[in-house]
């Protein structure tokens, strides 16, 4: 119910933004970021409600992960509008608003059962909570970077390309350390505590490493190539596609230790 309400708020936010996209002036609507923030807060409330019900942080199923991801990206949509550093344009916030809508649509599908189930012993770990939450926070910034990189490739003027590149880089630079800590380091620490092995080349682990390598390559390419090169936005887009494959695709296509998440 709460997830549906959030979905509706985000949809209204997107419709309002779409209307403003076609305006010739640079005016930004005052309502849509607040609707996104409201959706994010509702989703956060739902995650807290579920956490209370199962007596553990509700981040242990695909449905809960999607809710959390949608919640984070909703907050980033709000931040994109009000962060002076990011100075995101209308197209960026419009594109970023589409992502939580997609996540919530996926959460409503049969692929992500919504039933509340307390975690099995292997999942009852503070390291798991850190692992999952940091990974998704990092990926939420990667999502903003993905939208920026996508628009960078589509931009027709050099000024716009530079603006989108700056936004993509800033998003990746913020998301990268958070993702590194969450996906790789906290994940490895949890694996060591739970299974006695830091790394086991499980498909999910391997694909998380590939995601990290892609963004690492991007950050290194930035040191040696001009920021107008098309290689960089392509790497950012590829990184996010790989991150989403790691999130969804691996669960359904490749079996491994992470089959529950």
């Amino acid at each position, binding site marked *: 119910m709460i997830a549906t309400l959030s979905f509706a708020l985000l949809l209204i936010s997107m419709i309002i933004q779409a209307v403003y996209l076609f305006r010739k002036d640079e005016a930004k609507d005052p309502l849509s970021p607040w609707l996104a923030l409201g959706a994010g807060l509702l989703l956060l409330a739902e995650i807290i409600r579920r956490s209370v019900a199962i007596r553990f942080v509700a981040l242990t199923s695909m449905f809960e992960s999607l809710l959390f991801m949608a919640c984070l990206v909703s907050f980033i949509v709000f931040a994109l509008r009000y962060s002076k*550093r990011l100075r995101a344009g209308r197209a960026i916030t419009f594109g970023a608003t589409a992502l939580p809508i997609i996540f919530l649509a996926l959460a409503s599908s049969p692929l992500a059962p919504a039933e509340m189930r307390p975690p099995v*012993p292997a999942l009852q770990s503070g390291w798991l909570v850190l692992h999952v939450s940091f990974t998704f926070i990092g990926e939420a910034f990667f999502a903003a970077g993905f939208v920026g990189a996508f628009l960078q490739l589509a931009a027709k003027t050099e000024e716009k390309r530079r603006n989108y590149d700056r936004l993509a880089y*800033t998003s990746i*630079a913020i998301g990268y*350390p958070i993702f590194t*800590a969450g996906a790789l380091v906290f994940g490895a620490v949890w694996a060591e505590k*739970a299974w006695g092995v830091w790394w*086991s080349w499980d498909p999910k682990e391997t694909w998380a490493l590939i995601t990290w390598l892609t963004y690492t*390559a991007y950050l290194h390419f930035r040191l*040696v190539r001009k920021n107008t090169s098309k290689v960089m936005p392509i790497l950012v887009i590829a990184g996010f596609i790989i991150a989403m494959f790691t999130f969804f695709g691996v669960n359904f296509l490749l079996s491994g230790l992470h089959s529950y998440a």
Partner: protein
Amino acid sequence: MKGFSDKIYDALRSVKLAAALIVLIGILAAAGGIIPQGRTVQFYAQRFPGTGEKLILALGLDRIFTGLPFLALASLFTVNLTICSFHRFASEMRKPRANRRHGPDLLHIGLLIFILGGILSSRTRTEAFIYLGKGQAARLPDGALLTLVDLREERYPDGRPKSWESSVVIDDKAATSLTGVVTPAESGGDTLGESGYTGEDPRIAAGGKAPQVPTSPSSGGAATATTATTVFAGLAPKAGSASVRSIKVNSPLRYKGSTIYQQDWNSELRVVLEDAMGIKLRLEPGTLAPMLGGSVRFMTVEKHEPSQAGAEECSNYKAVFLVSTAAGKEILRAGKGDKVGTFTFSSFEEAPVSALKIVRDKGYPLVAAGLGLIVLGTFLTYIRKLKGMFA
């Protein structure tokens, strides 16, 4: 004019080389992420029939992460990272203190320590699995005796596991606790059980000797399954010699360089034998009971996995025993009520067992330190971006 060695040095420390190596390692990792690793030839023949299977096996794509191309790239990356870290750190130190940025240095040094830890771990790590019922014990690699004094399992109303907890006592003065042991030689020279009839879980019955947990090195990060020989029952340590410690999933027990993990939880069938006095004796698979003039060892349940069948369902199954007497050894298949040596086979009984994994890994501190530095380094590198987001 730069000399040849300078050119090599510049090439090896270049960011371009680092970026290229990262991409190549990523491509190989992607192949390893798509193609299942370390499976049998039959698996690949079935999954990738024809050319696919031949290509995978010929190119070593079934073991990418331990293959030469991946290791060569990883080695070159390590060289690049080492030289780059040294060069960068030296450059930073020449700057005024206020302008120095050591985040990338910490990140790179953390990665190097992590790689060193990984190499040390792959060379020195040993793993062993032991399956203990309540009251059973096994020797740890350092000679101490680990006894399972209790095991508790909780389940949610829907039947899924909620918690597994083993309570153990580790007695490093265990040699003095084991009084009146019966060695295999004393029990009729029966040593078959040391390797086991089924090769799965050989044990020695009450009062038996507790041999060392056999450990084996793990390779390529894959767990190496090894069962341990254990002691059955009656081995409570002497008062004051050791305290009870808990092992839970996600909460392993660290003891003198070994880490003991709660790996699994299961139940197994044991047999109940009755002697002429009506005294009941319980035996797990592989355990031995001394009798007048010899011994009886319970080997296995015929044709069925003991752990997968309940005691009731198994009531018509045959238990396989090795009966050793002065006249020789005899394999005996017995049903309920049959005579087994001087005993009568009374019934099957189901008993919970705790699966513990014992790991010794000298690379642990380096890997942990490396991971810590990686986190610290990445955050220090990009902290300005984090700080400036809402500036």
